[in-house]
């Protein structure tokens, strides 16, 4: 899974984070290092779609949190991914 939007959503699923915290988190759980341009490209798209929103803070490192629609989208994508993973595993076992 290397889709930056899914990785960001997955990172925000357990609570709000700012850009650097997301980068560190994604590196840790997915072993993928998102560059600053890729991360903020994904944040821009996700915010435009209403799947994440900024949290009010006076800091330049503005945190983001996942919205209900974002959680729903992530759930749908994970279900679909889960189906792919299960099918592929089953076929590998029988190959």
């Amino acid at each position, binding site marked *: 899974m290397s889709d930056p939007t899914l990785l960001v959503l997955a990172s925000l699923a357990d609570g709000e984070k*700012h*850009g*650097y915290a997301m*980068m560190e988190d994604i590196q840790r759980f997915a072993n993928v290092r998102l*560059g*600053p*341009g*890729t*991360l*903020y*490209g994904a*944040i*821009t798209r996700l915010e435009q779609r209403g799947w994440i929103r900024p949290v009010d803070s006076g800091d*330049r*490192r*503005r945190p983001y949190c996942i919205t209900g629609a974002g959680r729903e989208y992530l759930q749908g994508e994970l279900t679909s991914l889960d189906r792919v993973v299960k099918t592929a595993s089953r076929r590998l076992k029988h190959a």
Partner: protein
Amino acid sequence: MRQLIRWTARLYPVVWRERYGEELDALVEDIQPQWEDLFNVLLGALRMQMTTWNYLKIVAAVALAGALVAGVFAFRTQNRYVSRAVMRIAPAGRADSDPQKTLDRLQQMTNQILSRRDTALRIQLLQTQGGGAPAFMISYEYPDQVKAQAVVRDLVASFIEQNNTAQRNRPASAVEILEILDPPNLPEQPCFPNRPMIVAVGLLGGAVLGLLAALVWRGVR
């Protein structure tokens, strides 16, 4: 490196920078920047520019691309030069001559001199002031200016030779004299390609295409 990334981040659209610029700068301060981050920010800026393009930007970009393509074409196209000579067939003892007869004679001589038709060669009857004997211009276009001049010089010599042979058995009153008014010139400037014109046409063509692209873009969105 950090400063380089900050400068690169200025390539993002202004509207985007107003919203996310501070955050991106803060992120760049927090990370250990690498070369790949610089390219990543550059790519991100280009992508963001493309997604926020308005019609004017589309037209400008396609026009620029058109000018660029036309420029490459213009500078890769070989120069062509035209050498010219002006001659006149004057009937001896008479001031006037029938231009059509002159043209027919020229055509006849050209057919005798040239074994095949060459599109680079042009023989053109010129308007003469005061109703004098008609003059004609021989021009030849070639990528090498010296060779173009040599071809016209050879043609002029052949015309004179042909004319002398044809006049040999004619009575003195009917003899037609072939005069050289302007000898074959060595062209200094190429006649083709007109590079500024080609680039201008590319720019204009690109702008029209860009306008069409912008209309299609509007339809898609």
